[in-house]
């Protein structure tokens, strides 16, 4: 949706096709936009349950009890411009009837969106909570993409999905819906009477920065995104390195079985796009395992990075002359000891440049975790973009942060490199303790 508005505003398109809820909300907020006053047809919106889920009927019944006026008032509140009244009730009821896991859309203002403090807001959210209160259940929301929601419901990751979901005949075949709103399709266009005075260049920038970072404490959203990205990347680097090393250890002596197995898995993992691997893990392999999506992302990237580390070790260690091993053996070293004392210290300097590049590459490739409802830096940028309807600052901010993080990674690895590469020691530090006593 924000993409449509951006395209509209930048005159890439002349009209956007959307539902009246969004169009009205945007037109209310932004005088640059207007509704093309023609109804192009109605569509029901629904809360989707898996086919045959008994809870649907309870929810439908509870929904039907909500008075028409209450619903209308809530609706008006969310499409209005008064941000101060847009509050979501706390789940302060007992919740004796358990928990329901609900996936919802993360960037679909005013129906369902991640707002201030990373919390969910919107018309759908409030209606869901009204019903949940009536049924005395607690709701566990997971914000994600619409496409991710559909897969999440199908794979049993969640019990219900919401967030302006259009009920189509095809979806009816796969799901049962609680119909909660009737939306109309309209066109959203640029308003002819352009009332807004063009703000000065600097004021425009100031306003954008204010919207992107300050308003609703959005910088916190960025910080959360950075934290998630860092956690996934750092854990994946550590676990992946360990994994790659362990696999290499079993394969290094040419054990046929270990080599065949690891060769197969590496072929499998490296043969598909990381995003596909991520989704296979999330929706298929760990579909019924209580693992957070962040943990699954860590698993996926550890596998990918482990494969890389394995390859690097194989090349690096393979580049060390066989004579080194023979000399160490002839001195009485064991295989294990000579590997750590003689081979690895010489292989690491060969591996480090590639390793460094792989770490930065991994940092960047984690940007796809949004596919499995992890809110990393990129996703947070999207969420903010969806609120501000501005592309420039969120995107530039995200890019700059990735640059800084990448630089940080390179810096840290360089320090480690200097620490472990024996050839980078200072001459006066070699044998310091022996020489100083002489």
């Amino acid at each position, binding site marked *: 949706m924000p993409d449509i508005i951006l395209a509209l505003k930048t005159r890439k398109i002349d009209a956007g096709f959307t539902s009246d809820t969004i169009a009205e909300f945007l037109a209310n907020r932004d005088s640059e936009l207007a509704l093309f006053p023609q109804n192009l047809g109605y569509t029901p919106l629904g809360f989707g349950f898996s086919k045959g889920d008994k809870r649907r009927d309870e929810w439908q019944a509870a929904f039907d009890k909500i008075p028409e006026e209450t619903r209308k008032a809530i609706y008006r509140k969310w499409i209005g411009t008064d941000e101060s009244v847009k509050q979501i009730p706390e789940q302060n009821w007992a919740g004796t009837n358990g928990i329901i896991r609900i996936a919802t859309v993360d960037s679909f203002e005013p129906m369902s969106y991640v707002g201030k403090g990373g919390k969910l807001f919107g018309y759908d959210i409030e209606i869901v909570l009204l019903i949940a209160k009536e049924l005395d259940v607690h709701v566990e929301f997971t914000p994600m993409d619409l496409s991710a929601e559909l897969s999440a419901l199908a794979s049993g990751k969640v019990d219900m999905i919401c967030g302006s979901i259009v009920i189509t005949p095809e979806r009816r075949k796969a799901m049962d819906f609680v119909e909660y709103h009737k939306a109309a399709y309209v066109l959203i266009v640029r308003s002819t009477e352009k009332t807004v005075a063009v703000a000065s260049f600097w004021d425009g920038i100031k306003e954008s920065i204010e919207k992107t970072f300050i308003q609703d404490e959005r910088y916190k959203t960025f910080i959360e995104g950075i934290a998630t990205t860092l956690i996934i990347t750092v854990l994946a680097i550590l676990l992946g390195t360990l994994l790659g090393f362990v696999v290499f250890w079993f394969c290094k002596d040419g054990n046929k079985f270990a080599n065949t197995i690891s060769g197969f898995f590496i072929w499998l993992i490296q043969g598909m796009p990381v995003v596909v691997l991520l989704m296979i893990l999330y929706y298929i392999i760990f579909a019924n395992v209580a693992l957070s999506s962040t943990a699954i992302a860590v698993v996926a990237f550890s596998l990918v990075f482990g494969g890389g580390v394995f390859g690097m070790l194989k090349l690096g260690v393979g580049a060390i*002359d066989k*004579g*080194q091993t*023979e*000399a*160490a*053996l*002839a*001195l*009485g*070293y*064991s295989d294990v*000891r000579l590997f750590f*004392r*003689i081979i690895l*210290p*010489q292989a690491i*300097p060969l591996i480090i440049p590639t390793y460094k590049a792989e770490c930065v590459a991994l940092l960047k490739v984690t940007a796809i975790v949004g596919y499995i409802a992890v809110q990393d830096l990129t996703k947070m940028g999207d969420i903010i973009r969806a609120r501000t309807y501005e592309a420039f600052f969120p995107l530039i901010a995200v890019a700059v942060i990735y640059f800084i993080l990448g630089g940080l990674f390179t810096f840290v690895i360089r320090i480690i490199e200097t620490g472990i*590469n*024996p*050839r980078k020691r200072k*001459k006066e530090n*070699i*044998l310091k*303790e*022996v020489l100083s*006593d002489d």
Partner: protein
Amino acid sequence: MIEIKNLRKAYGSVVPLKDVSLKINDCDVISIIGPSGTGKSTLIRCINLLETPTSGQIIFNGVDITAKGADIKKARQKMGMVFQSFNLFGHLTVIENIMLAPMDILKMKKHEAYTKGMELLKQVGMADKALNYPDELSGGQKQRVAIARTLCMDPEVILLDEPTSALDPTMVSEVQSVIKDLSQSGKTMMIVTHEMNFARTISNRVLYMENGGVCEDGTPEQIFDNLKEEGTRKFIKRLKIFEAVIDSKDYNFTNFNENFYLYLLKNDVSTSDRYRAQLILEELVRELLLPRYDEPFIRIKTEYSLQEKDFYLCLTYKGEQFDIMKSDNALSLSIINGIASKIEYSFNGNDAEPNCVKVWLNQDSGKHNL
């Protein structure tokens, strides 16, 4: 000290070592010589089990180290090895290369290892390079460090696998002198080498290997001076052989001369020697022998020693007894006599080719101005 019993090593169908049995005594300094590819290195590498023998036993200080579960590491600590390609640890300085194994394996204190390492470096003349990395050294220096590294473990036996083969000729002597000093220290040593003179001076025992077996085993005098075996003789004198048979009056001499010329060129015979060799053959065969017989059968064999740079010619031929020296071709005879340093004729009626002429040509000292 080391007893090798029926040692055999095979890689599939290639058998570099066939059934070697050997006893190495304390304080032996053994040189192993022989043509390339005869299993010398394989033998020495089997002794410290860098190559696993296909069959056979190696008994070191009374313990069979080829047996299952034998403590190979312990045995290797007592058998130092010096490699052709030095194999210094590239990530460590010279002194650390020497200290590493004593500290890691013998649990020597750092101070102690340092003191001992420096002492050994002085011994091999490398003390001033203690803090250099191996890639900053020349080949000869690397090898001297490698020898010091081996010595720092106090081995009972030192195995040297062609220690000077990868060196520039200018650096061979510095390494040889270190090894020579070592050979006089009373340590048991085993050295694979191609340097005959060096082998002769340092060792008290020489093994001549050929085709994966030990052909001769004796003192340097026995091996080098009384060349018993044909193979040993050929190897030590570095003989190059040329053979041909002339069996008709219409023999294609152009072809023969070309082959002979190539053989001389290949073995780097000097121009004047080459000319002398060709001339003497020509005179002997074409001027003296061929006119004499209607159905000639002449077997020619020449040996050229790269070591001593001299020729030996042996012609055997069928037919009635005929001593070339008694020929009436005075011109040819005088040419032959002018070139050859020694000529012998013999007749043995039992041989297929009863006549035999042996001619020796010493290196041209410049007195024959042909």
